[in-house]
């Protein structure tokens, strides 16, 4: 009986270990494939956080699944009648201390990391490019204070912080720059701001992520991260508004 119990416990730990390795590998390799293209410091931070949190969660999830498999295999009730009451679980001090310590370390770590990431997202360099973003059913428009430029496409230079000042002309929209990993609500009569620093040239996707009415699903726009020189040329090429 004791041998059988030891053997099943060994199997549990093996399952736990293997599943942990599998989940860690998933955390390392999968988010890159399924998250949108990373093109800003905030998107990088979001990706790193996703990977790190997945790795932290891996042993916990693996323990739960290994436990479930162990219980299903060795402690399943096979009778047709109501099963007898299970024996009371006796306290295991070692297990309790280990479990509580590990949980505390993990949760405190993710809390500290999360607060740090939040603080990093809210920080500003002091000289951002300001872009006013207006949502209305069901399009986005972008204007550049200090110029006469208003555009339906977003243009921003790379490696310079951008401050999006976001508002709405009608209902609440959600301004989500997918590739920058930032989003903020666009509320009528209110300006909300969010910062990010693009760090990769290319095309970006902008969507509304608050259900805003009939054609909410079609409310998207495209944007471009270009070099500072290309950005200046684009600004200069825009027609002056009367």
């Amino acid at each position, binding site marked *: 009986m004791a041998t059988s119990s030891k053997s099943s416990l060994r199997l549990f730990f093996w399952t736990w270990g293997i599943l942990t390795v599998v989940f860690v590998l998933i955390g390392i390799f999968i988010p890159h494939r399924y998250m949108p293209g990373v093109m800003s410091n905030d998107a990088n931070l979001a990706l790193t956080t996703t990977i790190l949190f997945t790795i932290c969660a891996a042993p916990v999830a693996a323990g739960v699944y290994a436990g479930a498999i162990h219980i299903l295999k060795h402690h399943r009730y096979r009778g047709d009648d109501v099963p007898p009451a299970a024996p009371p679980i006796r306290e295991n001090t070692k297990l309790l201390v280990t479990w509580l310590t590990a949980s505390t370390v993990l949760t405190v770590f993710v809390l500290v990391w999360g607060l740090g990431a939040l603080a990093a997202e809210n920080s500003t360099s002091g000289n951002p490019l300001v872009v006013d973003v207006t949502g209305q059913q069901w399009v986005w428009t972008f204007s550049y204070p200090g110029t006469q430029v208003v555009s339906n496409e977003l243009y921003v230079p790379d490696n310079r912080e951008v401050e999006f000042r976001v508002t709405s*002309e009608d209902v609440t929209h959600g301004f989500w720059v997918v590739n920058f990993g930032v989003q903020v609500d666009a509320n009528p009569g209110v300006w909300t701001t969010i910062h990010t620093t693009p760090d990769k040239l290319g095309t970006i*996707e902008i969507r509304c992520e608050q259900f805003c009415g009939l054609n909410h699903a079609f409310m998207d726009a495209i944007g471009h991260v270009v070099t500072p020189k290309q950005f200046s040329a684009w600004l200069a090429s825009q027609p002056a508004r009367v």
Partner: protein
Amino acid sequence: MVRSKGLGVAVASVLIGGGVLALAGFALASATPHQTALQCVESTTKAHTCSLTLATYPDSLEGVHGSSGGPHPDWVTYSNDNIDVPANTTVDVTINQYDTGGEPNNPAFLDVIGTNGGFDTVNGVKTTHVTGQIGHTWTLHAIPGNGKYLWISIPLPADNASKMPVKLGIGAYPKPEVVKFSFTTGGAAVYEWNCEFPCGGSRLGNGFGEAMSSFGYMSGTLTVQ
């Protein structure tokens, strides 16, 4: 035996539930009012060119809603919602604007954007930017995921020629503002268009309700095929 019976009941429940949900989805999709798509009329003189004529009305007593005006005869409307155009073709569009207007809520929609040549004509006068009041806009953009970007926005000046007619209805509209422009289609794709001037009623008073938030009035699709 009891277990396999239970498993069978569970599987059957899931299948039947899925079937009921699918049927409900099909029923809802079929119940959505569809209008016959407006076809672009191919030119007999110019190759790869076709023409469309649309109109905007201050009520629904004209256009596709019929002479009774449909369920909301007092709502503003475009003459058509869904439009079919051929691929790789120059589309000449005429919009007869019969409605009055107001100050735009967003100056971005005063610009003519995305047309061939970057302009339109208003009553024969070449225009790139409308000043003053507008009645509506015809703003076309891509649907997420179709991979083909297209953005056209045409401001339709308020019909100030004769203000609102005394009597609404067929034949009672004033002389329209005639807006003409052309654009060129690419490959097959579906785009969405809508008005960006808050011309609909709303209990919130922002003009984006009623006709602006219902299919078949101030929005539609443009299918390139």
